[in-house]
């Protein structure tokens, strides 16, 4: 048995080769040939590693189910034919039409509030507005610039028909226009692909979303950003350096002595949210 013959034999195998089941000639050759031993080990390691690589972890499973629940909850299941629905609402349509006209006249007289939020939030979180916590959080609460959010589980921030961020983890944010400032904690954020251009402001950096899933962690002296999927553009607040992070890459910023004034200012003027003594958050029902 030569190495060439062994490798040809191995090239025809499409299953795990147990040492106990090898032909005698091959066993004898392997006893004295380290190179061919390594080849056999490499062949068998494919059968060991691949099943583990596709195993669904408990964490991933829970995450998928949480997103699935949100997806099912957001879609309406209208099984009634359109015209049947229309006909059944005929008497109400006339009244609704007059009501809508009245609303349009009323709204045309109202000066638009420039601070009015266009983001909506739902999920496991607390929202604080002007220093006060909003109790009995409804689904899809409109957010205003300056609102502060404390997430404690799966939270969704949405704007537009399809754009949204799914945030998982415990972290604190301040709402801005097309921007969230993250002040502390650790969160995984999944952006819909149309969320391109959205920004997350951290202590030391700003990241711009190009369609991605990211994990951000802020501690006392460091902040780190890991891209799980897709791509982000980052910019250091202190150095103004920019770069891209792709899937699997991580960047860390450490607090130095020459901190960017803006970043320092953002942190000191807005202390972390203190949890008042209240009842627990109303969790959205299953």
């Amino acid at each position, binding site marked *: 048995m030569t190495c060439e013959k062994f490798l040809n034999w191995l*090239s025809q195998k499409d299953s795990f080769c147990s040492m106990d089941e090898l032909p005698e000639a091959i066993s004898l050759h392997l006893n004295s040939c380290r190179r061919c031993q390594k080849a056999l080990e490499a062949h068998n*390691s494919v059968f060991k590693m*691949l099943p583990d*690589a596709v195993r669904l972890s408990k964490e991933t499973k829970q995450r998928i189910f949480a*997103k*699935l629940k949100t*997806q099912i909850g957001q879609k309406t299941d209208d099984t009634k034919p359109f015209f049947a629905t229309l006909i059944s609402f005929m008497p109400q349509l006339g009244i609704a039409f007059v009501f809508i006209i009245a609303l349009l006249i009323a709204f045309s007289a109202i000066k638009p509030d420039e601070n009015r939020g266009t983001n909506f939030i739902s999920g496991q979180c607390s929202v604080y507005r002007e220093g006060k916590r909003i109790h009995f959080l409804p689904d899809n609460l409109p957010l205003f610039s300056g609102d502060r959010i404390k997430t404690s589980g799966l939270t969704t921030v949405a704007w537009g028909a399809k754009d949204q961020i799914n945030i998982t983890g415990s972290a604190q944010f301040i709402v801005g226009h097309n921007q969230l400032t993250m002040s502390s904690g650790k969160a995984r954020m999944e952006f819909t692909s149309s969320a391109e251009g959205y920004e997350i402001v951290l202590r030391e950096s700003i990241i711009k979303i190009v369609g991605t899933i990211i994990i951000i962690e802020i501690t006392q002296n460091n902040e780190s950003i890991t891209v799980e999927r897709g791509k982000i553009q980052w910019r250091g607040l202190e150095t103004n350096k920019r770069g891209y992070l792709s899937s699997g890459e991580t960047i860390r910023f450490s607090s130095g002595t020459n901190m960017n004034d803006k970043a320092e200012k953002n942190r000191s003027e807005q202390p972390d949210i203190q949890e008042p003594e209240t009842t627990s958050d109303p969790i959205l029902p299953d």
Partner: protein
Amino acid sequence: MNHSSVDKVYDAEFVTKLRRREQSAFKKMFDDFAGLVFSRAVIILGDAASAEDATQEVFYKAYRSLPVLKDGRVKPWLLTITRNHCFDEIRKRKCRPICVNQPYEPPDKKVVETPSAFLEEVSRLPEEMRIPLMLKVVEGLKYKEIAQIVDKAEGTLRNLVCKSLKILRKGLEK
């Protein structure tokens, strides 16, 4: 890993609960089959992130179809949805040419020996090679069963699997 052990057949009472979309029944179905759907999606799509999205979509489509569920043999039904969804996704991507002769560049350094890093390496194989390989190695399917999924002759599939194993073995030997 051999998901053929997940051969649950639900009884009539449970099927009724599924048709009514009872949350506990749907959750149980998800718990029983999410692993199978996920691994099949990884095999076809080639990466865990895409497979995660695909798993969510497959179960969402299943949820919408629950009222017309025929019987308790949920496994083949879910795998059909998975297959159709994943191949639709591949068609949408239009990013990788399907060609056996597409050159595969072996890595310069030894492939990292962790399952997730190894999966990335496997994902670099052309789809025509990767999918049969993973169906054989991960799910332990026979070539006849693989042929029904990827629509290729059994002899061709065997050659593709052996060729894939040889390529990966060389990467691991470095």
